[in-house]
């Protein structure tokens, strides 16, 4: 307990300690930042349209490589996870999926961290993986 307090924000943020919920906490922030960075890049990329066909084609060539396709597949995965987990968080914040309020008894398991929420996180990760595979299939015309 004493050690927990000394760790401060690092202890709270440790993804290895609090199970899949803390992993989801990190993934939500990392995917959010990744998607914002992609969005800014996408706006810049599409602005090359205004410089004519040659500029558009040369910009497009950057994404028409294996690395470009892998990057886009990652963007698809980030988008699907962020959406799935975001919907879970909205539902949770509305107060659904926690069960009934009860007296906090030992071992003080938080009712918010239940199987329903854990399942939603795993489903979001699974859907993200499937979407990435589908996206790669579309990009490679499989």
């Amino acid at each position, binding site marked *: 307990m004493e050690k927990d307090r000394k760790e401060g*924000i690092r202890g709270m943020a440790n993804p290895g300690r609090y199970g899949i919920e803390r992993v989801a906490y990190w993934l939500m*922030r990392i995917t*959010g*930042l990744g*998607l*914002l960075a992609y*969005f*800014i890049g996408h*706006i*810049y990329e*599409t*602005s090359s*349209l*205004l410089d*004519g*066909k040659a500029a*558009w*084609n040369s910009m*497009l060539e950057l994404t028409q490589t294996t690395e470009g396709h892998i990057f886009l597949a990652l963007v698809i995965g980030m*988008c699907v996870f962020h*959406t799935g987990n*975001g919907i879970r968080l*909205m539902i949770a*914040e509305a107060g659904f999926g926690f069960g009934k309020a009860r007296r906090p008894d030992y071992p003080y398991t938080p009712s918010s961290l239940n199987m329903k929420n854990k399942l939603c996180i795993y489903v979001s990760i699974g859907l993200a993986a499937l979407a990435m595979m589908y996206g790669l299939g*579309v*990009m490679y*015309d499989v």
Partner: protein
Amino acid sequence: MSSIMRESHIMKIHYLTALVAVGFVIIHIMVRVMQGFSDSLLFDNVIANYKSIPYAIVLEAMLILISVHGFNGLRIILLEIKQGRVYENAVTYGCLAAMIVLIAYGSRTIIMASMGMV
């Protein structure tokens, strides 16, 4: 922003922009996939997409919704890391300014391409 608006209202906007943006992103992706992914990215096809007014409106709406959601998300992450009146104001107004710049830059592309100024 927090001094202008209550955080609970900002979170409602955050969730609402997310849900509506998901709908528009699905339309955006469906348009690309239905035209054939590679063909849909040809210069003439992209310009034709922009010249379709309903689709240009979808793009503009998506630009605004995702910018508001994205930069508010960034603000929330940055406010989790550190607190303090000066820092919070700097983060809030910095994100607001970046959001306005991005919307203006993206809108310029949408307006010029849809009006054929390419």
